[in-house]
């Protein structure tokens, strides 16, 4: 499964980068969303996978069970998801405002308007 997820991660990265290179702002935002998922998956996979053993301490016990999933990457990813959501929301609104003001949907043209 590791190999499969590595390929998925790479695929998502590729798709994200490709979209980041588009001239249409809308595609760029989609690219950002894809890239965010790719990065989270990278952290998750690289930390090592454990099937179906969430890092929970059973009632009554003080010490977590053996061989459970690593809690640290999960905590990191949780933070990352929320942050990238903030970024994405801001970018969407920013570009929709830009379009309303400039009536341009091409980065190349946007640059010329700027000058």
């Amino acid at each position: 499964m590791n190999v499969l997820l590595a390929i998925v991660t790479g695929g998502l990265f590729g798709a994200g980068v490709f979209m980041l290179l588009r001239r249409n702002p809308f595609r760029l935002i989609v690219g950002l969303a894809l890239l965010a998922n790719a990065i989270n998956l990278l952290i998750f996979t690289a930390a090592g996978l454990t099937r179906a053993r969430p890092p929970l301490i059973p009632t009554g016990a003080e010490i977590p069970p053996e061989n459970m999933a690593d809690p640290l990457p999960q905590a990191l990813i949780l933070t990352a998801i929320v942050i990238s959501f903030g970024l994405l929301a801001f970018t969407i609104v920013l570009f929709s405002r830009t379009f309303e003001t400039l009536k341009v949907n091409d980065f190349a043209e946007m640059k010329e308007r700027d000058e």
Partner: protein
Amino acid sequence: MLFALSAVFLMAMAAPWLGRLPSRMAGWVLSLVPLALTFFFLGKLGAVADGRTLTESWPWVPGLGVDLSFYLDGLSLMFTLLITGVGTLIFIYAGRYFHEAPAGRFFLWLSVFTGAMLGLVLAGNLITLFVFWELTSISSYFLIATDHKKESARKAALQALLVTGLGGQAFLAGSLLLGMAGGSLEIADLLTRGEAVRSHGLYLPALLLILAGAFTKSAQVPFHFWLPSAMEAPTPVSAFLHSVTMVKAGVYLLARLSPVLGGTEAWTVTVAAIGCVTMVAGAVMALFQSDMKRLLAYSTVNALGTMVFLLGIGTETAVKAAIVYVLVHSLYKGALFLVAGVVDHETGSRNVTSPRRLFRKMPIIASSAVLAGLSMAGLPPFFGYIGKELIYEGALKAPFAGFLLPTAAVTANLFLFATAALLVLRPFFGGTGETPPFHISPPEFFLGPAILGLSSLAVGIFPGLVDSTLIAGATKSVLAREIPVHLALWHGINTAFLLGILTFGAGVLLYAFRDSLERCLQGATRFAALGPARWYEWSLAVLNGTAVRQTRLLQHGRLNLYVLILFMTIAGLGLYTFFRGEGGWVLPNLLDARISEATVAGLILASAFLSIASPSRLAAVVAMGGVGYGVALIYVQFGAPDVAMTQFAVETVTVILFVLVIHRLPSYVRLSSRTSRMRDGIIALGTGGLMTLLVLAVLETGNESRLSGFFAEQAYPEGHGRNIVNVILVDFRALDTMGEITVLSLAGLGVYGLLKIRKRKEG
């Protein structure tokens, strides 16, 4: 010595306030500090003449072997006395020179310069020396541009700063190499390790770099051009920085390091040759100037060349001659510059070729000019005569190059003779025109020229005033051994004397034919236009042009290209590193995936492809949501229910957000060409492939996180929670989470703000 130096810098701090006084008064008040220092250092004369060196040291950056240390021996003392002595006169003079305008800022920089220059000649550590060296360049920059509203002044200031600044960098590099070769940056240590340094492999690069620093500072050909340009500075500055002190810093450095670096073939050839060329070129160019200050500047180039030339020869006689000439030149050139300043100030013209009868207008000034001019021409009984005789002797006794060196020395001196005649005769005594009204200049103006001019005479008649103290001490520092120094006007009839007579005769002839010679040489000025000053302008233009082109090339403002370059670099460098390292790791088993997991993976990849390939915006957004949900399913299967829940929620909100604004966004046209899509596709594939390899490589190495174990064990006892991920977020890394919340609320504020602007515009 630290105390003396601090006094000068304190004076610099006080200068802006004192500048509010009438300038005249400020000049007198400020001159008290250098005057006091002159007496302070005169008090050290006895000890130094006895052969002692005074040192002081404070740790500064001990880890790098850099100390704030001072080193006072005969050589430093001579330069110190020149700086404080002439400095006193300059401050008095400048007060009068600026009597119309407030001069606080000028006095500030003049004081900073005085301090820096003192620090330079007193420094006992190469790095300390470098710091003061640069400080003199910087204060020189501000002083040249005193009249900052004039473009030519600003240009000249920048030129001087760039040329000496580049040399300063070379000097720093050279010092560091020298420090490596000698094992210490302390001058006192290096002076005892000359043999080891000269046989070290780094000797040659260190030598060349240090020479580059000294040659730029001391205006040696081909770096001489900044000095005549620097004549844009007010005359007190030209007199002080650009003739008596700062330009001699390079000479000082050569003299200071000559026991360490000198004596080798590389030293002799480079230093003597450059000095010789500069000596002759400076003298020849000086004669054909019409501006008094530029004439003096070129003759300063000649004098600096002479000193460097003599230090390059490096024999006992030559070194003695160099030291004597430092003193000779400072006395006459300081006086002549101050005279030029008065002439400019009171008549508004500095032309030397047109005859004026200024002797009647300013008799004291004119007399001082005569005294200094006679010393410059090298006539007895002036100090300049002794200097010239020694130069000839040094050149005659040089152990190489035969008659070439004496010839060069005589040529330079006969031009210098004619220049001196031109400078003194025409403006003050020339012509038969009407006599200007009689007028005594204010004492601030004639004090400096008179004292310096009379000194040239006094020291010439009584060389015993300086020879066994100043000159002997300084010569001993340069040669690293004691030699008897007895200066006298009359040495009997010898070759040097005969050459002196030859110089006199030929000089008179040269002066008589100067104007016709100038007409003949007019064609040659065209060649002069191709000289180093042009190289400087050209390289500056090329540098600026390159900077502009490079900025245009890299900072084009196209977002896509920035991103393109970024990812190209990441993919390129990353993949290169991967394939350069030992490859051949075993591919882990593909088949350990369960069917459910493989299905999810396939779903993600298919959605990702759909989201980039779909021609419809809505479909792209839905496919993007599909990717998010798929990733969430992975989290579910591998023991991360909290993450999965958050992911589901966020993904849903994101898609809703997209759908809400989708009608406001532009329609989906295909903008890029086929080739650019191909290119982007290759970069995307490269980056994606790199990431896949990265994950595999990380998994290969295996990792044991000690942190995870700690969190897991302490979650319940310390954090009182059973969900370890939650405990990490709100307990162990609570501060991070707070930061995250802050970011999110800021983003929310931003979104709100952007929406609000629209409402107001619509309403």
